């Protein structure tokens, strides 16, 4: 599993892996929103938590369709399915690699974009914290969506249609954490609920995703 994780990380980091793509998209979004909404600092500060979370979510979505598709096309997924590692483990390793190459960098870069969007001071810590806690759920749910659509030739658009509704609870609790922090309120409740969603997704969705992969590999 560790070897598989390292392999996926290498593939993502080297040329053509699309590692910086999510980050670049996140940056562009943070630049486009003020251009669209107007440069008023108070307005930007009000909407910054939501924009940053929606941006992170969309950036996560970008690289999802490659999660299983490349391995499916060249047949390595068949090999992985017959290997001694259970397919659930393969899914988890791939989702983890996806998180390390998108979710984690997004969480680390988010405060910088927070400055661009005039995010209120007390919200920076909670922003990073909520992204660190919440993005694993995004990767895991995304892996499930990618497993569903892996056999399709044009799965990308359908994938976003399937995955985005599933992202709703994560987005709500994640953005609420940051919004409450920006207003100086207690963030424990939404943060714990967000953690609950992540824990539940990581515990259960590998089984659903592996089940979907087995159907697609039939």
């Amino acid at each position, binding site marked *: 599993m560790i070897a598989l994780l390292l392999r996926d990380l290498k593939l993502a980091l080297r040329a053509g892996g699309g590692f910086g793509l999510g980050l670049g998209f996140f940056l562009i979004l943070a630049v486009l929103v003020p251009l669209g909404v107007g440069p008023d600092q108070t307005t930007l500060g009000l909407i910054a938590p939501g924009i940053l979370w929606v941006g992170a979510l969309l950036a996560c979505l970008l690289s999802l369709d490659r999660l299983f598709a490349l391995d499916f096309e060249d047949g390595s997924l068949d090999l992985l399915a017959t290997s001694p590692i259970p397919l659930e483990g393969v899914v988890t390793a791939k989702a983890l690699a996806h998180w390390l190459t998108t979710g984690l960098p997004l969480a680390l870069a988010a405060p910088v974009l927070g400055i661009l969007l005039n995010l209120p001071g007390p919200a920076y810590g909670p922003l990073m914290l909520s992204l660190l806690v919440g993005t694993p759920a995004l990767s895991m749910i995304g892996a499930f969506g990618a497993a*569903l659509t892996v056999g399709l030739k044009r*799965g990308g658009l359908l994938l976003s249609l399937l995955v985005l509704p599933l992202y709703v*609870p994560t987005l709500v*609790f994640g953005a609420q954490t940051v919004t409450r922090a920006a207003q100086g309120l207690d963030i424990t409740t*939404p943060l714990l609920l967000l953690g609950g969603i992540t824990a539940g997704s990581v515990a259960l969705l590998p089984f659903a995703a592996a089940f979907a992969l087995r159907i697609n590999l039939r």
Partner: protein
Amino acid sequence: MASLWEYANPVKFMKVSGWLLPVTAVLAAVMVTVGLVWGFFLTPDDFRQGSTVKIIFLHVPSALMAINAWAMMLVASLIWLIRRHHVSALAAKAAGPIGATMTLIALITGAIWGQPMWGTWWVWDPRLTSFLILFLFYIGYIALWSAIEDPDTAADLTAVLCLVGSVFAVLSRYAAIFWNQGLHQGASLSMAPGTRMDWSYKGPLYLCMTGFGVLFLALVLAGTRTEIRARRMTALLTRERAKG
């Protein structure tokens, strides 16, 4: 004693649904027509909301069926995954567009009522929001069915999506409550004593709700029959081509 699973046999299902479909269709037409005419024309106006309140006779039954259609899809998907009855998977497929339409009717009638009453077509109220999200779930489900060519793969994958989607739909509902306090009133009908609605309204409302339930049954039967016939046609064509 005859088992329920006998109807999982397509031939048996076609035979039974052949006479059940006209019966339920006529029953639904009568119930919905009588219920709506009774509700729209033969009930007194509400003393504060006037006649706008009467949209409840469309709004509540369609909202009820929007949720129940998903529940039915969930049960049918489970039956398909566990017992591999094709009729069950096809019934779930047939229920998808019907449920989506019911959700849309509930949303639109709600907007038409909300405009004079709340002064706006749309607010981001938890109930409204979760219904919109439910609609998105339906769209994803229907899209996945239509995107996959192999029928068994499609049935399997949509069933998994339905199971996972159910969990997340419920989560979204509670996330929406957490996210915003509502404008939508609580349930007007309740089994609890001291319910708030007068029988002059309850009568047609219950009739409409039952009528929509029967209507949903009739539509699912019709849809499932169409799917079974389409399956048979594909099988026939394949056999003919193999011969020729």
